């Protein structure tokens, strides 16, 4: 039930931002649409709504995760641009296996998305029981599981652990 309320609020705020200039017709339609969406898919949206009421999670998200993510994203683009424009195409691709410590769905989703948008890596599949993530790496630096984990996952996992666990 609380998950439905959270989804209703998120959907309604999205609707208001998309319309931007408030108007009672828009707001009324928005309430109906957000209510309908929340009624249908509310239970799938979030597993543990309690975590939304911890202010330190937002603090870590805005001031630790976002700057790290934007910086890595810019680095990734310059890296890919360099590889594409280089006449000899300096790539050494392969799929490696890395270990993850996160357990929650949201945490794993954010970790996989972050890995995809950071330099040279693209997450392919996840094995939740054993805690492995398969990552396509454009320039394989190490075939060993532990080494690869240290290079690819560690810097994000440290921050995401505090937000989602």
């Amino acid at each position, binding site marked *: 039930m609380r998950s439905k309320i959270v989804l209703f609020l998120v959907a309604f705020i999205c609707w208001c931002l998309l319309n931007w200039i408030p108007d009672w017709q828009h707001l009324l339609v928005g309430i109906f649409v957000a209510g309908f969406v929340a009624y249908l898919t509310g239970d799938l949206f979030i597993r543990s709504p309690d975590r939304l009421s911890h202010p330190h999670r937002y603090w870590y998200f805005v001031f630790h995760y976002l700057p790290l993510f934007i910086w890595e994203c810019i680095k990734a683009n310059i890296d890919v641009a360099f590889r594409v*424009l280089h006449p000899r*195409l300096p790539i050494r691709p*392969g799929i490696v296996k890395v270990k993850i410590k996160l357990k929650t769905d949201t945490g794993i989703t954010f970790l*996989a*998305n972050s890995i*995809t948008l950071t330099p040279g890596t693209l997450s392919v599949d996840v094995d939740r029981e054993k805690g492995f993530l398969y990552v396509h790496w454009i320039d394989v630096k190490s075939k060993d599981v532990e080494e690869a984990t240290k290079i690819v996952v560690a810097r994000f996992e440290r921050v995401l652990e505090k937000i989602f666990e």
Partner: protein
Amino acid sequence: MRDIIGLAFMTIGFTFDVIGCLGLVRLPDVYNRLQAATKCVTLGTCSILFGAFLIVGFTAAGMKSLMCMVFVVLTSPVAAHAIARGAHKAGVKLWKDSVIDAYAEDKEGKT
């Protein structure tokens, strides 16, 4: 002044989008192409949208472009992940000079 900064952001975005498309042509297999397409197109498109937001300011169109940035960042890695997984399940081979394929090794162990 705001127009000039906005246009600069749009130019950077276009450059990265063009490089992404070039990568789509030059790189050898599905997975490498996805890397170029996802990264360059995400930052390029976000940069264009942010430039548009700077030019029009806090209007209905500006807010829509900000919302689009959030949705592009959230959805494009998921799409890339789905395509890569689907391609591997459908049996698309890695490039011939690839050094390791841990995913295929583990899958063979199971069946």
